[in-house]
């Protein structure tokens, strides 16, 4: 009885650990600060000095949760992958919502320009 109890406990512990690991590896948004100094662009970009761009990374495992913003196609692809991983790869973890930023910079003619650039910041990630 003691051995069986210990085995059960170990099994549950293993399952919890693997679930935690799975949650951690799930497709989600990660922090990424782009500093214009790193690419040497701070001599012509006046503001901002950098910005939070974020990026998407993680697994799109079966079954896909609601918060993973999946499409019907991604769900089907993931389902097929779960049956036969050789047939088709998993769905990709990609940005599903992006927003813009404004940049104040000096152009090629030394003129001051304030411009709004679309799709510069990842707002949400999902399996597509």
């Amino acid at each position, binding site marked *: 009885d003691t051995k069986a109890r210990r085995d059960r406990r170990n099994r549950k512990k293993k399952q919890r650990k693997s679930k935690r690991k799975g949650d951690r590896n799930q497709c989600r948004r990660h922090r990424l600060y782009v*500093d214009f*100094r*790193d*690419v*040497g*662009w*701070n*001599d*012509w970009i*006046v*503001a*901002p*000095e*950098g910005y939070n761009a974020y990026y998407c990374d993680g697994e799109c495992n079966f079954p896909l949760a609601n918060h993973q913003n999946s499409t019907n196609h991604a769900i089907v692809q993931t389902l097929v992958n779960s049956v036969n991983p050789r047939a088709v790869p998993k769905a990709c973890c990609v940005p599903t919502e992006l927003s*813009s930023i*404004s940049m*104040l*910079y*000096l*152009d*090629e*003619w*030394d*003129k*001051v*320009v*304030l*411009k*709004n*650039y*679309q799709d510069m910041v990842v707002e949400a990630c999902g399996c597509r």
Partner: protein
Amino acid sequence: ASSTSSPASSSGRRSDTRPQPTASSARSYNSRDASTIRAVEANLLRILGLKSRPRPVGRGDIPPYMLELYQGHSSGQSSLPANTVRSFHHYDHHAVSNDCDPKTCIRMSFNITNIPETDVVADAKLRILVNRRAAPRVPQRVEIHEIMSYNDGVISRLVDSATTDVEESWLSFDVQPAVVKWKRGARFNHGLEIRLVSSSPNVSSTEHVRLRRAADQTEKQWLMERPLLITYTDDGRGQPVSRTKRSTGTSKKTAR
């Protein structure tokens, strides 16, 4: 690697407390193929709508109004009619003319050739600072004329006007029709004529309407006060320079 030798970091124009790139990140940049980095940079510049990487010379010449616009937008307080805003300083016309008295009239030109042909001009404003504290309180009109031609004397047309009835303020004049025309080609750009009209001939002076640099004025002071042309253009590749706000609904209660 390039960040360590950039002029901005050496001049210390901005106070930045963030840590410098680490040695390992610098090594990783160096280890990459230079041509690949150039290709990536070219690709990024293309996305940003630039032909080449700007190499600015005039580091401190950022008009305060442009910084205000940027800060207003960053804090979500302002919205603008297009996705690109450009600022231009004028250069004086040197053509001598009897019908433009230096006390009440000035001619100025703007080089707007850097606006791409594909951009559509949504709006254009000429901003002029008026300091009424420096002059007697007599109503005065500021008239903006577009110079159409120099053949057989100056032919101009009135594009906008305003009365200087405030203590100290920036007046904003609509010069969009002129800028739209100038954008069609440099041959259409003969500049603007700013005239001060007053009922009392003794008070007409350009001293309180900041159109010329005073002899004792520093470059920095003049940058704060000089006229500024602002163009709002749209390249068709983005949203206006404004933040998307949630609908407020029909009443405060509904919005809540």
